[in-house]
C-alpha cells in the first residue's frame, strides 16, 4: 500500500515516540524502529551518528519516510509524507 519505507528513531521513554508509533499502527503503516536508549556502546554511538545526519539536533522521534525527515510527532506532516 505504501511504497516508501518508514523508519523511526526513538527512545523507549519518550511519550511522543510512543504516540508516533501508535499513530502509524492505527494507519496500518508498517515501520521499522530502533529505541536508541536501549542500545549500548558502539552500536548506540553509530546510530546516534546516523540520526545526526538527518537531524543535527538529535531529538526524538526522528521519522524517516522515503526521502522525508520529520522530527517530532507531527501528525499532519506524517500524513503528507505518507500521502494519506
Amino acid at each position, binding site marked *: 500500500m505504501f511504497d516508501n519505507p518508514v523508519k523511526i528513531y526513538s*527512545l*523507549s*521513554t*519518550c*511519550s*511522543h*515516540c*510512543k*504516540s508516533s508509533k501508535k499513530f502509524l499502527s492505527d494507519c496500518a503503516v508498517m515501520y521499522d524502529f530502533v529505541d*536508541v*536508549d536501549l542500545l549500548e556502546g558502539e552500536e548506540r554511538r553509530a546510530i546516534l551518528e546516523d540520526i545526526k545526519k538527518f537531524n543535527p*539536533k*538529535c*531529538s*526524538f*522521534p526522528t521519522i524517516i519516510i522515503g526521502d522525508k525527515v520529520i*522530527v*517530532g*510527532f*507531527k501528525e499532519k506532516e506524517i500524513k503528507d509524507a505518507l500521502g494519506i
Partner: protein
Amino acid sequence: MFTKLNFISILPAVILIFYSLGISIAAEENKMTENKNKPNRLIHEKSPYLLQHAYNPVDWFPWENEAFEKSQAENKPILLSIGYSTCHWCHVMEEESFMDPNIANIMNTHFICIKVDREERPDIDKIYITAVSALTGSAGWPLNVFLTPELKPFYGGTYFPPVAKSGILSWPDLLKLIATAWKDPSKKEKLLSSGQELSRIITNHLSWSSSHGPIDINFLDNALNNFSTRFDQNLGGFSPSPKFPSPSIQNFLFAYYFYAKNSDKQDDTGETALKMGNFTLRAMAIGGIYDQLGGGFHRYSTDAKWHVPHFEKMLYDNAQLLRNYLDAFLITRDIFFGNIARETADYVLRDMTHPDGGFYSAEDADSTPADPGPNGGHKKKIEGAFYVWEQKEIDAVLGPEPAKIFSYHYGLQPEGNVEYDPHGDFKGKNVLFAAHSLDETADKFSRSNNTIAQTLKESKLKLLQARAARPRPHLDDKILTSWNGLMISALSRAYQVLEDERYLIAARRAAKFIRKNLYDSATKLLHRRWRKGERKIAGMASDYSFLIQGLIDLYEADFDPGRLEWALELMDEQIKLFYDKENGGFFMTRKDHDKNIIMRVKEDSDSVIPSAGSVAVLNLLRLTRFTDTTEYAKVAESTLKSILSRIKAQPDSAPNLLIALITSRLKPAEVVIVGDRNKEDTRSILKTINSLFIPGKIVMLVDNNTTRSRLARYLPFIEAVKKMDNRATAYVCTDKTCKQPVTDPVALTELLN
C-alpha cells in the same frame, strides 16, 4: 480609581430628565431618623466593608431578596452603592453623607439602599460599573448606581460631595432630583426606558458571542507597539498620572522578550520589551509607591513619578508584582530586583497572613496619627499617616549622623517632600523614596558603599520598629480564594527563585487553608470568601482560574501530585460550570449563581486583576501537557480565538491572553526529572531549571513509586522513565519532540536554551 470604557455616553439624555424638573421634594423626609447609633442590617454581615457601614443611619440592605421585594412592593428605585473596605473615597463619602442623618433620611424615604462589597461580588460590580462607564465615560469607587426595581441601571456616578462643589452636583440634590423624577409618570417612563437602553448596551458589551477569526501572530507586535506608544520613557509606566502598577503588562513584556529570543525575529523588539518592563519596575521600586521600610506596594501613584501614592496595599497587586520582580531578577540577575521581591514576600508573611495560613485581602490607606496634633486629641484618620515621616521624627529615632545619611538617601525635606497636597494630609510630612543611589549617597558622605548600605539597613530597621508603635491602618482580613491563588503562585515561584523555604511553607499553608475552609471535596464546590469561620458565596471563574494557577505553580515547587490532582478536578469543574461552549470564553459566574443578576458576564480584557478567561487559557495549556488531554487544548484554543477576535483593534487590552498566545505557539519545554529530591544531584537539576526564565514550561518530579504511578495515570510514559547511571536524570521534550535524557546540569541548560 477610574476605569474608562468605549461607549457613546448617554448621560445628556438622562440628566435632562432630571433638570427639567427642578428640585421640589415633599416634606415627608423631614422626620429625622433616630437610628443614629443603632446598627442596621449590615451588622449581620462578615464583609469588613459592609461592617464599616453597619452604624450608618442609612437603612442599608445587603444584596438579597428582601431588598428587591421591598423595592417592588413599594415601587421605589434602588440605590446600589458599591465599594471596598480600603477605598479612601468610600470612607470620605461614608463619613460625609452616609453618616449624616438628614441625608440618610432622604435615602431611606425615597430609595431602597443596598451596599455591596465589590471584592465579595465582582460580578455585580462588573455589570454596574460598566453601566456607569457607559453613562459618564468613566467610573470608579465608591460607585453609586440607581436601579429600577427590576435591577436595571438608569443613572449613576462615583463620589458625590454632601454640598454642591463647582460643577459637581451634591449627593442630597441628586437624590432629590431622582426621587422627584421617579414620582412624575412621564419622567419615570423615560427613566425606565433609559434603564432598558442601558441594559441592552451593557449586555452587548459584557455577554458577547463572537466569530472565531484566525489567530494572527502579529497581535503580539501590534500589542508591543501599543505599549511602546503608551510607555513613559522618562518615568516608567504606561499611563499619565494617576499611575497604576501594571503587572499584566510587565508579564507580557517579559514573555515577549522570551518569544523574540526564541523565534526568528531579527529586530531588537525583544530588548525593547525587556527594557520597558525593567525600567518600570525599577522606577516603581525606588518610588514612594513602594513601602521603602516595610516592603510591599501601595495601590497606585497620584503623580506621574511614582512618588505620592494612595497608600492602601492590596494582596492582588503584591502577588502579581512579586512575580514581576522575580522574573526581572531571573532575566537580568540584578540583585536589586531580587531584593524587592524578597522584601515584598516578607511583608506578606509578616503582615498579611492569617495564623492558619490564608492571606488577608488588604490594608487601608488611612490611619490615626500617632501624634495627637497641636491641640491634642486629634483622632481623625488621615491618609498615609502610618507611612509618612517628619524630619524631626527621623532625627529623633536615628540620631544626627545616620539621620543625615538616611534623609539624603530617601529624599526627606525639613518642610516635607510632598509637592501636591490638595487635602492638606501631608503638611510637613515626607513620603520616603530612594532619591539617590547607593553610589551617590556613598560619594556624598565619603564612605564606602558597604558602610552606607549597613547604616541604611540599621536605620530602616530602627524606623520600622518605631513605625510599629503607631496605630495601624485597618486590615481587611477576609480571605478570598482568587487572591490567595495569586499569592500561592507568587510565593511558590519566590521559593524556586530565591531558594527560601519559608515562602514554600507559606504557599503550602495557604493551599491547605483554602482546601479546609473554602472547599467541599464531596461536592467539589469551591467558595469565594471566608471570614471568622464563615464561608460564603459560590466560587466565581476567577476563584477557579487563580487557584488552579496557584496549585500548578505550587506543584512545580513541592512536587506533591495532590496539587495537580486538585487542579485537574477544579479545571473540570470550571469547564463544566463556566465555559461558554457555543462562543468560547468563560462566564464570571455559574449558571445558578444568583437569579437576581441581570446577565452572565464574560470578561474579555485584563485589568489590574487578570480576567478569569486569560488565566484559564494559560492553565489549560499547562494542564494539556501535564495530562495529554486534548479537550483542554480545544477549550484553550477556542477561548483564545474568541477573545482575540474581539480585541483585534486593541490587542494590548488582554496582556495575559497574549502570553497564552506566545506559549501556545512556542511550545515551551516539558521536563520530567527522575531523582530523590533530598539528594544533591536532583537539587542541582531543579536549581538549573529554576534559574531559567521559560514562560509556560512544565516540570514534573518522579521520586518514588507512588508519585510515579500517580503521574503515570495522566502520562503513561512516566512508568518507564528511570535514572541513568544511578544519577538524577532529566527527560526534556519540546513541541512533540524529545531529547536524549541528561544527568548533567550544564547539558540540561543547553537543552532548555
